[in-house]
Every structure is written in structure tokens, then in C-alpha cells.
């Protein structure tokens, strides 16, 4: 039988605040064990939590950027579970009045993945299992998280990956998290069930815990789809269970079944007051949001006339986009500028991190000047590329490479002379071209560019050459 995949994601995003959610300890990554701690985040009796304003503000930002409604009244709840990474034996989270509800993330296809809710909560400590002991470090305990719960709108592993990447991009754009999956600042739990194609009822679901890479999510979902489909084909039932994904074997295995499902006994947190978020505050946060990634992408394509593929190389990197837009503010051509960034600057940036940081030796105004020479036809685009490469290397301004006389261009007379010279100096190429080898004209161009030190207009030269070779 053919089955349809039904999936929803619970995504944890670590917020990049300076202090923890309920105390003024630093959230800095690393540090010697238990040195970023105080009585509050180690769960000492009598210690009282005080909610961090920035955590609420970042949750509002995240909510507005994903088209959520922001609840003006929101409160914390206790989620009880007993494990050494949680010293109080409960996690302070949110249950029935989260900060945000009812949003969505739009995929490239236009399909909207619903966001059920976004709530704030504290992270747990880190456990190291060794020599029959568990060693606990509470430095991460109390670091603020938002949990973004999606609707079961995802119907393929690829959609899950795209949803997650979109989410990651949005959170980075609005500056609430660096979303580094490899460092654990973004993790996802994946819910999966299958149903016969066309059916409207949901099948029994399983949940794969703590996934930390989009590509592994795709693999895990594919594996889980196959596993469930096989069971259903044999007429067997799916057991509702929490699973762990084993990366090395590409399999899932059971952590716990339905019978030992946790009962968290949620109840309102009595140590923290209910929070009132005034409408004006929500409006203020909304006004402070930057242009969101999808909007930027569309503007680049529709208004600036970039190709989708070029736009996709620029908009995901906040610093590149900022640089690019500053260049454009000098009134130069969007396409030439984009091509020089994507074609030339990117050639010097090897890693994603380097693109992300985008600290280059050429100031925006210098690139704009270079582009303006291309725009006005004074400089060939290819010549501009090679000049830009040298500028990136040396950090020198455009004026160090382009002299006034270079910019005058060639008169038609001079160009014609050069073309005649090229023909005279390359009898072999001329012969080949006349024999029907169109490509042979290329070596004439090469000669021409060399002779003119890049000043020759290729299009004009081609017309003249073809005329002369008739």
C-alpha cells in the first residue's frame, strides 16, 4: 500500500542572551564545570527565579517573525521530571499560556507549515557518564530556550529539512540565536506517523528525540518511514514510542514506550509572576524587526532583477546582504554588483563561516566605484573582476589599479586597428575560423584583450572582427 508521511517538529533554539533565564549567571559557552552557576540554577532550596526580560522579548521577536499571535498575558509552569540534569526535579517551562501561538513558516513551494506555539523554558545541565558515575555540569542549566512546535503539516523528509533551514535563517536574521546545530544551540524532536494516501485519520506516531543535523533528520525520517510502512504492510500495529536515532547505523531504537510515557504533572509556577506584555511593546518589537529572509529573497528577484540562483547565494548571509545593499545605496547596478560579489569575492571565501562573517578588505564605497565604471561602459566586467581580486588581496583602493587614461576606453578607430593587428598576428586562428571553426575567434579575443590591457569592448570587437574576416 502507498502511505503518506505526516510529521511535525519540536525545535529547541538556544537564545543568545547574556544571562540565564532565571538568574544573572552568564550563558557563555564552556568554562570550567559549575563555574557559571549560582543557587538558582543549581536548584538550591529557597532560591527564587527571576525572569529575564530579554528572553520574553526574543520570544516575541521569534513569534512575530513566524507570523504568530503574541499573548498579552503569559505565565510559566512547572514540568515535573526527575533526572540529575535538572537539579530542581522540575523544569520551568510554559504549558497553557505560551508567549506565541498560531503562526507559520512558508516553504519555497508556497506551502505553509503551521506553528502551533512558541514557548520559553530553561535548558538542563550537561551529563557525562563515566566509571559507573554520572558527572553533572550545570553551566548550561538555566540557559534560555524557545521551543517551536509545528503542526503536523510536514509530508516529506525534504520538507522537514527545508522547514528547519528556514527556521534557522529566520532566527539568525532577527538575531535571537546563532542556531548552530553542531554546537547544540538548535535541536529538534521529530514526530512521524503514516497513513494510507487519501486517508484523513492520523496513524500512531513515534517521536525521534534530539536530532542535531538536517541531513540526519532526512535519513532518520526515511528510515522511520520504511520501518513503519513495512509493519503496516504486514498488518502489524505501530507502537507509540520515543526513539533514538543511531547515526552510525542509520537506524532508530526505542528509548521508551507508551506504558512508561512521562506524566509531567504540569502546574502554574508559583515562584514567578504572570507577565503582562502591553500591546505597545509588541508593536515596538514588530517595528524593530529587520526585513525577513523570504521577503528579501523576493525583493532581490522581483525588484532588483537578480536571477533566483544569484539571489539565493546572497540573501541567506546577513552580512553579505548588508554589504550588498550598502553598495546599491550608491546607485549602482544591482546585477553587476551581485555578480562581482558572487563571482569574485566568493572565490576568496572558502568556508560557510567566512561567508557568514564576510569581513573583506574592500569597503562598500570602493566596490560601488568599480561597479560604476562597468555601468558606464568604461571598464569591462571581466577586467573589473580581476581588479577586484587584486583589491581583495591588497586592500588598496580602486585608484591603485585603474588610471584615468584606462577609463577613456578605445575609440572605434583604435579598436579597428587593434582588430587588424590581431588578425595579422594570428594567421592560424584566422585560417581555422575561415574553415568554419567558430571557436577559433576566441584566440583573437585573447590577443585583443592582452594588447588593449583589458580596455577593448568585446561586443564591439566581435562585430568588427567578423566584418574583417568576411
Amino acid at each position, binding site marked *: 500500500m502507498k502511505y503518506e508521511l505526516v510529521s511535525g517538529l519540536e525545535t529547541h533554539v538556544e537564545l543568545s542572551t547574556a544571562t540565564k533565564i532565571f538568574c*544573572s549567571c552568564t550563558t557563555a559557552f564552556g568554562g570550567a564545570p559549575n563555574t557559571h552557576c549560582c543557587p538558582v540554577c543549581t536548584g538550591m532550596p529557597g532560591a527564587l527565579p527571576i525572569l529575564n*526580560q530579554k528572553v520574553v522579548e526574543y520570544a516575541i521577536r521569534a513569534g512575530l517573525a513566524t507570523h504568530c499571535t503574541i499573548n498579552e498575558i503569559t505565565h510559566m509552569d512547572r514540568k515535573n521530571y526527575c533526572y540529575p540534569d535538572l537539579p530542581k526535579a522540575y523544569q520551568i517551562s510554559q504549558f497553557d499560556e505560551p508567549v506565541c501561538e498560531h503562526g507559520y513558516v512558508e516553504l519555497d513551494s508556497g506551502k505553509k507549515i503551521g506553528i502551533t506555539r512558541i514557548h520559553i523554558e530553561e535548558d538542563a545541565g550537561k551529563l557525562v557518564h563515566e566509571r559507573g558515575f*554520572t558527572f553533572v555540569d*550545570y553551566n548550561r542549566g538555566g540557559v534560555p530556550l524557545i521551543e517551536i512546535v509545528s503542526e503536523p503539516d510536514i509530508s516529506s523528509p525534504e520538507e522537514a529539512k527545508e522547514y528547519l533551514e528556514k527556521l534557522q535563517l529566520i532566527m539568525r536574521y532577527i538575531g535571537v540565536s546563532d542556531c548552530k546545530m553542531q554546537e547544540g544551540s538548535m535541536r529538534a524532536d521529530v514526530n512521524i506517523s503514516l497513513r494510507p494516501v487519501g486517508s484523513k485519520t492520523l496513524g500512531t506516531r513515534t517521536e525521534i528525540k534530539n536530532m542535531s543535523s538536517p541531513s540526519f533528520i532526512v535519513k532518520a525520517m526515511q528510515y522511520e518511514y520504511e520501518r513503519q510502512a513495512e509493519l503496516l504492510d504486514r498488518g502489524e500495529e505501530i507502537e507509540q514510542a520515543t526513539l533514538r536515532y543511531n547515526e552510525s547505523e542509520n537506524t532508530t531504537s526505542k528509548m521508551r514506550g507508551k506504558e512508561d510515557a512521562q506524566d509531567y504533572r504540569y502546574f502554574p509556577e508559583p515562584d514567578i509572576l504572570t507577565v503582562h506584555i502591553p500591546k505597545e511593546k509588541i508593536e515596538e518589537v514588530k517595528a524593530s524587526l529587520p526585513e525577513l529572509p523570504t521577503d528579501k529573497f523576493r525583493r532581490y528577484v522581483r525588484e532588483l532583477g537578480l536571477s533566483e540562483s544569484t539571489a539565493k547565494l546572497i540573501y541567506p548571509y546577513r552580512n553579505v546582504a548588508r554589504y550588498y545593499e550598502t553598495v546599491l545605496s550608491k546607485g549602482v547596478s544591482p546585477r553587476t554588483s551581485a555578480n562581482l560579489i558572487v563571482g569574485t569575492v566568493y572565490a576568496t571565501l572558502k568556508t560557510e563561516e567566512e561567508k557568514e562573517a564576510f569581513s573583506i578588505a574592500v569597503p562598500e564605497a570602493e566596490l560601488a566605484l568599480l561597479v560604476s565604471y562597468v555601468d558606464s561602459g568604461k571598464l569591462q566586467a571581466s577586467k573589473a573582476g580581476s581588479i577586484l581580486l587584486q583589491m581583495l588581496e591588497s586592500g588598496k583602493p580602486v585608484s591603485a589599479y585603474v588610471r584615468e587614461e584606462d577609463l577613456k576606453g578605445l575609440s572605434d578607430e583604435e579598436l579597428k586597428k587593434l582588430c587588424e593587428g590581431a588578425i595579422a598576428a594570428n594567421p592560424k586562428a584566422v585560417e581555422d575560423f575561415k574553415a568554419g571553426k567558430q571557436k577559433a575567434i576566441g584566440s583573437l579575443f585573447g590577443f585583443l584583450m592582452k594588447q588593449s590591457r583589458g580596455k577593448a569592448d568585446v561586443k564591439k570587437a566581435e562585430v568588427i572582427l567578423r566584418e574583417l574576416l568576411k
Partner: protein
Amino acid sequence: MALTETEIKRLAWLAKLKFTEEELAVLTEDMAEIIEFADTINASVGTLPAGNDFARVCEFDDLRKDEVQESNLSEEVTSNIEAEDGFFPVRRRSL
């Protein structure tokens, strides 16, 4: 407001606790003091504007600012354990 011995007995029953007559006498006195203490809180609350919901709701602006402060109790937090490289050790036992 003081509690009567009958009320104390009722409370003890609700809390599933048993007391001797002597203990009840002591408790009645203690409880009276506790309630009296609570009354001083009530009295000070009474001086604040009436109908204010301040006790239940915190305004966004009044939440804690995101500024790091070193806790003066960081060392004491780990002082009552035999710290192994600064970690809290937990013995694992199979149940």
C-alpha cells in the same frame, strides 16, 4: 486572628498528622504567632492602592534586565560536594 484548638485539630487531620494534647497546646500558641506575623504583611499591603493587581502580574518593563552579575555564592554552590574536577558526581544505581 488566632486559631482555635478545634481548627488546629481539623488542620492536623487534613494534613494526616497526629498530635498529643500537649503538642496541640504548643501548636495552637505557635500558630497564633505565625498568623500574627502574616497579619503584619496584610497590614502593609493594606496601605497600597486598592484594586491593584500588582501581586499577581508583573509588567514587561519590570522584568529583570539581561545584565551579568557574578553570584557571590558560586563557590559555595559546589562546596558541599566532593567535587571531581568541579563536577557533581551522581552514583548510578540500577533499580
